[in-house]
């Protein structure tokens, strides 16, 4: 599904990713944990194609295709989805219009043809009910005035609607209350399939009780410094990152 080989990326001369190697097979769930500023969001943005980063070395293959040569929207249409750590507000673009435009743009890019409005409405209603996204939130401008938790739920709604092949979740659990965490996790779990992979970035082991990872990685200073199974998350929860940072946890 995804192969990242020796990926180096920098911003304005600052090296942020320093040789990432990561392979995710179809159906696998990978988690990335790591201290603040270690480069987790940067990796997710580089995968999605954000233009602020300069890739100085390495390659990314997504189902055999060279991701670094694809446009942002081509990556999305190919099935790569990033649920962002800080979903942005877009005044003047109604959430519903946005969802429909995005879904149809992807379908057209894949040669599937647009979804008819009634079919689209039915699908959105079904999914939004599950994720506790109200009709009112669908009518409002995209994310404008949404609470932190509402924004995250709206990200997962987009993901559920777009049915990507690779879901990258960047701290989707931060800012969620206990109920919202369960709702969001259920939404994510509903998307689990042998053909769909997930890359879950989080600071909290708790999320991984809901979304159980096959593999857990620790990222530090732009490198993956340790890889293990789900028990690694429990271990980190207990000991912190002192082993990697050299600092003693308080």
């Amino acid at each position, binding site marked *: 599904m995804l192969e990242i080989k020796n990926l180096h990326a920098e911003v304005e001369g600052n090296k942020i990713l320093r040789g990432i190697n990561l392979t995710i097979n179809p159906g696998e769930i990978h988690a990335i944990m790591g201290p603040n500023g270690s480069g987790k969001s940067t990796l997710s943005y580089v995968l*999605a194609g*954000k233009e602020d980063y300069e890739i100085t070395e390495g390659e990314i293959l997504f189902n055999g295709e060279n991701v670094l040569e694809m446009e942002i929207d081509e990556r999305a249409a190919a099935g790569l989805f990033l649920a962002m750590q800080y979903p942005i507000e877009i005044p003047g673009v109604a959430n519903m219009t946005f969802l429909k435009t995005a879904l149809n743009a992807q379908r057209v890019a894949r040669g599937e043809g647009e979804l008819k409005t009634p079919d689209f409405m039915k699908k959105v209603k079904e999914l939004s009910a599950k994720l506790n996204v109200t009709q009112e939130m669908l009518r409002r401008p995209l994310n404008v005035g949404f609470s932190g938790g509402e924004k995250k739920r709206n990200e997962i709604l987009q993901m559920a609607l777009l049915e990507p092949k690779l879901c990258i979740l960047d701290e989707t659990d931060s800012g969620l209350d206990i109920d919202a965490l369960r709702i969001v996790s259920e939404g994510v779990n509903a998307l689990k399939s042998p053909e769909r992979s997930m890359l879950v970035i989080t600071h909290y082991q708790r999320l991984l009780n809901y979304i159980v990872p096959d593999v857990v990685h620790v990222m530090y200073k732009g490198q993956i410094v340790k890889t293990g199974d789900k028990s690694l998350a429990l271990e980190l929860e207990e000991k912190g990152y002192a082993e990697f940072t050299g600092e003693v946890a308080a």
Partner: protein
Amino acid sequence: MTTPAIKTAADKALASLIESAKGALPGNESFASLRSAAASAFEENGLPTRRVEEWKYSDLKKAMPADLALAQPVDSALAKQQLSGADIIKAVETCRLVLVNGIYSAELSDLADLGDAISVRSVAEALQAGEFQLDDPAIAQGDIALSLNTALLQDGVIVEIAAGAEIDKPLEIRHIMIGGGMATVRNRVVIGKGSKVGVIETFTGDEAAYQLNTAIDYRVADDAKLNVLRIINEGDNGLHLGSTTATVGGHVHFEHFTLSASGKFVRSQSFVAMLGEYSDADLFGASLVNGSRHSDITLKMDHAVPNCNSKEQYRTVLDDKAVGVFQGQIIVRQYAQKTDAKMMSQALLLSEDASFNNKPELEIYADDVVCGHGATCGELDEDLLFYLRARGISKDLAKKMLVMAFLAEAIENVSDDRFVEALEAYILDRLGLAD
């Protein structure tokens, strides 16, 4: 010392047009002297140079062609053909007054639902009968576009709305230019005391090079509610000099939205005089300027009496090598205490070669007032673009959506839902976003 006016080819063309048109223009003798006074100023001084403050950013001398002729009367069968193509507000049902090449056509107009509360008369006819006075409000006196309008005035409509009338269907004044040439129109809309009415002015034209000088004068009596939508949809080679004057009585709500959407050179100017207390005037607008087009919005808001509110909010989108101008002047006279006047101009630049000139001016002589102005000029937000594209929306479509979003915030101000619908439909279509 006055600098001797240097005559350009356009100035000479204008002088000879004025000379040759004399016999063909309507009006009785007393109007003829007003006309020739206005004309002689142009014959002597020509068109304004950029040294004239009001025309600093819009070079009318350069925009006017060197071969000027009056637009020719149009065969009514041909005009009929063009009529449906000129329907740019399909979303709204209207009563319709049509002017083709500056001449009012009762035949092409649709006044079936007009009712008794509205009367319509041609300006040419009223001028001939000596029953039309061209008294511009003080704030518009001496304006060059209006003087030129007086010098070459051909026709227009005089619409009177009876006191207390509530007009359901908006009244559309549709201007169509066919086959090129110069046309000069002056309309007057008299809004009776306590009446409620919506007016839509539309401007369309074919691909020929033409110059339309159009003016409209709103006389709004006390307690009235007037909503105006003005869509400038001129042809690619059309020059539009448009002036709106309004005198506003007391307890009035006056709302005016201008969409400057096309035309090679557009100057849309408004002069509003607040003459009665406790009135609101909202001047809103949006401009979409691309290619090598020039679009100028010039406003003068004059608060002469206390206790009135005015708002000006304009948004401009500029692409390619387009030039945008916003000149907004607010005058609050000494007696106009408790005035609340605000002005905001925001521009979105989609290209490095596009430019925007913004000139706000506040002249405040009263001390107990709230006045302010603001301006922004920015590019599309890359983070917003990224978000949309990350969901699979192409760069081109994402840009258009953000342009629409930017303009949607201007349209949001409009209180008449029908106008909102018409504006949205027009802009979506223009951006290629209509489904």
